[in-house]
């Protein structure tokens, strides 16, 4: 039943004297309180009884002076529930009832279980809560869990300032120029994980209010940042050197930029006739421009 309908029913006794003038005058006090269908009864029913009692005039006829037709009315039969519902709907039990075993059982109204109701669970063997956190069983974590990557090799909660301060310098651009892209890319990710480690350590130290160590963590963090900055610089240098080499090759008439398969990419000019004595040097010069065509072999300019 919807709530407004329940409220309408709960308000019903207020209009009772006017709706049933003869019956209300005839109902004695011991027939009250009225039990209303599908309402909680309680306060409203007792209030209704009080109102009905007070509205009764002192000179109203008693039960003995009720008219003869009164027993035909459902209200006049003693201790019968009042209901405006159809009669067959009110029969919940018996052969013509709705056969609903859970009729009248409600968790909202806290009615509890019906008699002889059995549940799939019981009260036996329930775990006992442990309120002392120190006595609870400690769960075991995986030793090779990936989240250990957020900690150092020693797997400590927070590093002491001395341990945090034990680090070297950053990689310089001069060192990084000699490295391949695979090396630089791997080093970048080493720095990224190191930054995550330092941030995790700092957050935990601040949460514990452990004390000093922020300065050392910041210095270490800045060193990782400087290494990453130098990696970027080395890659940017390499990119511009490759572009310059392409431009130089495009301007060189002896170099074929888009050579087909089998076609030589380097065509020396026919007018050039080397002397006998400089034969070796010419061969060396031949090699140099052909190297220049490959961007991955190109050494960046200092």
């Amino acid at each position, binding site marked *: 039943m919807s709530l407004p309908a329940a409220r309408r029913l709960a308000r019903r006794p207020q209009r009772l004297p006017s709706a049933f003038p003869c019956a209300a005058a005839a109902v004695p006090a011991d027939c009250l309180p009225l039990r209303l269908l599908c309402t909680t009864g309680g306060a409203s029913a007792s209030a209704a009884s009080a109102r009905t009692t007070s509205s009764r005039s002192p000179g109203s006829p008693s039960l003995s002076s009720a008219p003869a037709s009164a027993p035909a009315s459902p209200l006049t039969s003693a201790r019968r529930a009042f209901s405006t519902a159809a009669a067959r709907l009110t029969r919940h039990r018996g052969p013509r009832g709705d056969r609903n075993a859970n009729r009248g059982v409600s968790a909202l109204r806290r009615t509890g279980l019906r008699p002889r109701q059995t549940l799939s669970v019981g009260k036996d063997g329930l775990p006992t809560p442990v309120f002392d956190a120190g006595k609870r069983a*400690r769960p075991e974590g995986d030793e090779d869990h990936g989240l250990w*990557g957020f900690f150092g090799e020693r797997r400590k*909660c927070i590093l002491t300032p001395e341990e945090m301060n034990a680090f070297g310098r950053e990689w310089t651009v001069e060192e990084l120029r000699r490295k391949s892209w695979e090396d630089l890319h791997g080093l970048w990710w080493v720095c990224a994980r190191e930054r995550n480690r330092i941030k995790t350590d700092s957050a935990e130290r601040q949460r514990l209010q452990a004390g000093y160590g922020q300065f050392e963590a910041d210095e270490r963090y800045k060193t990782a940042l400087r290494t990453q900055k130098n990696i970027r610089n080395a890659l940017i240098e390499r990119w511009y050197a490759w572009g310059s080499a392409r431009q130089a090759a495009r301007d060189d008439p002896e170099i074929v930029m888009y050579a087909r398969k089998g076609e030589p990419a380097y065509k020396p000019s026919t007018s050039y006739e080397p002397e006998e004595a400089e034969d070796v040097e010419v061969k060396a010069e031949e090699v140099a421009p052909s190297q220049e065509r490959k961007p991955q072999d190109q050494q960046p300019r200092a």
Partner: protein
Amino acid sequence: MKPSLSLLTNNINAKPIVAPHFRFGRKPIYLPNFDVTLLRTKHLPVTQAKFQVPLFFSKLDLRDYLYNCYGVRAINIRSYVKYRRVQLGRSDRSSRHERATWIRPRPHKFMFIDMDRPFVWPDEPTDFEPWDKEQFELTNEYQQKTAGRRNSEQEPRGSDEERKTLAEQARDLLEGRQKWKPTDSAPAQASRKTEARRQRRV
């Protein structure tokens, strides 16, 4: 469908990579420049973890990042943004205007993940001697006390000590124990009294 990050990690993870439980995104990020912080949260079960992530991060980003960089399978992710209080400027800014302007700092973003394997944090240290906790707290207390003063000897404005002295002077004047004189002609007795009180305290 929004493509997530596919982070290329160059096989720096020594442990064997577990099988992916999702389809990789098609937008490769070679050189990421952000931090992901693992945060200890006491009430979480061992199969959950909390992270602070950049504000632009999505759940798919964190899932790809944790899988590719750490070999962690994030089965389910929850996210929230924590807004921060308005504060008076930033003390590290050199411009006076920036220091005097009310700003709201950028909010923080946090994400919780569900994992298929349990992870237990290492124990907290019991002895904070290496971090010099006592000295650290004393220094902080002193700095908070002396914040905004011109020097350490100066009493803070509106302090209890100053208020008591002022009330005492006012009472002396009102009850006639003290005659008001301009301070130019002769130093007031009250100020000498204040000086004596300060000497006693030192």
